[in-house]
C-alpha cells in the first residue's frame, strides 16, 4: 500500500481562523481521493456542521446518514454535510476527526463517496456520524471546499488531501 498513497496538499489554519479550507487544481492522475480533517469551529455548541462543496458547489450533493449523539441514534437525509465537527463549547483543545473517501473521482459517472466523522467532548454529548453521499455530476473532481456552519474554522484545524493509485 505504501507507494500508492500520496499527499497532494495539506492546510493548517493559523491565528484568527478561516472561513473555509480549499483544495484546488486536483490532478486526475490518481484512482481515488482521501480527505482527512481535524477541525474545530466557532459555532456556539458542542458540535458544528462540516460541509463540502465539490468543483465550486454548482451541483448539490445528497446524502444519507446515521448518527449517534452520546445518548441516542438517528438516521436521516442531508446535502453537502460530511460530518458533525467540534463546536466552541466542547472541551477546550478538542478537535474532531473525520475522513471522506472518493472512489473513481476522475471517472465519467456520478460520484459516490463516503464520509465519517466524530467530534469529541468530555461530556455526554458528542457526535459520531456516517454519511453515504452522491454528487450527481459526471465531471472529474478538481476542487474541494470545506466550510462549517459557524462560519469560522478555528486555529490549529488541519486538513489533508491524499491521492491513491491502483498501481
Amino acid at each position, binding site marked *: *500500500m*505504501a*507507494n*500508492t*498513497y*500520496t*499527499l497532494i496538499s*495539506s492546510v493548517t489554519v493559523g491565528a484568527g481562523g478561516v472561513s473555509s479550507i480549499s483544495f484546488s487544481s486536483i490532478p486526475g492522475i490518481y484512482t481515488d481521493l482521501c480527505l*482527512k*480533517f*481535524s477541525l474545530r469551529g466557532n459555532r456556539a455548541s458542542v458540535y458544528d456542521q462540516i460541509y463540502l462543496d465539490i468543483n465550486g458547489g454548482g451541483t448539490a450533493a445528497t446524502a444519507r446518514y*446515521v*448518527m*449517534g*449523539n*452520546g*445518548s*441516542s*441514534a438517528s*438516521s436521516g437525509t442531508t446535502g453537502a454535510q460530511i460530518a458533525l465537527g467540534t463546536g466552541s463549547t466542547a*472541551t477546550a*483543545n*478538542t*478537535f*474532531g*476527526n*473525520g*475522513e471522506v473517501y472518493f472512489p473513481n473521482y476522475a471517472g465519467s459517472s456520478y460520484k459516490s463517496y463516503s464520509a*465519517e*466523522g*466524530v*467530534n*469529541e*467532548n*468530555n*461530556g*455526554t*454529548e*458528542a*457526535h*459520531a*456520524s*456516517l454519511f453515504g453521499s452522491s454528487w450527481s455530476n459526471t465531471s472529474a473532481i478538481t476542487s474541494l471546499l470545506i466550510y462549517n456552519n459557524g462560519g469560522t474554522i478555528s*486555529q*490549529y484545524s*488541519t486538513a*489533508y488531501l*491524499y491521492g491513491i493509485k491502483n498501481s
Partner: protein
Amino acid sequence: MAITKLSGSSLTNINKYDSFLAGNAAYDPGAYYLIERVTVGSGGSSTITFNSIASTYKHLQVRYVSRNTTALDSFLIRFNSDTGSTYARHKLSGDGATASAGATTATTYMASADYPTGTSTFGAGVIDVLDYANTNKYKTMRVLAGYDANGSGLIDFRSNLWQSTSAVTRIDITSNSNSFAQYSSFALYGIKGA
C-alpha cells in the same frame, strides 16, 4: 559467449552520470508506512504495546483482527501509559436489530468494539488518530470496528478523547479480561502529511 572484459574504446555515444537516479522518474515512497505489526503467538497475550512511536508522521492508524481466549471481551486502550481519568469515549452501535448510542466521560481508558471468542471468528477494526504529535491539540481517536459470529455480532463507530496535548509516543491495547488469542494481529501505520 560471456562478456569477460569491457574497455572504454569499445563503447560509443557514452553518457556518464554520477547518480543512479539520473534519467529515471523521481522515486515516490508514498505517505503510508507500516511502523510495526504484532501477531499473537500460541500462548496468547494480554496487552499489545506500540512504544517509542516517532513523531515523524502526521497520523497514526491501527488495523487489527482480534479474538479472545475465553469470552466476548472489550478493549482498554491508553496513550503514553496514562492511567488517569483523562479520557472520554462515545459510540454509535448496531447489533443487527437495534441502533444505539452511549457515552462515558472522565474515564481511565479508551475503547474499541467488543470482540469475540471462538475457534475462527475474529473481530476487526480500524483506529485513526489524526495529528497525534500536534501539541496544540487533545487527541481524538476515531474507530470503526465489529464482528459477526453467525448469530451474534455488532458494529461500532466510536470516538475517544485523550485530554492531553502531548504527542502520542506509546499505545497500549489491553484485553479487559483474559487474553488476545493466537493469530490476533495488530498493525500500526504512520501516515505522512508533509
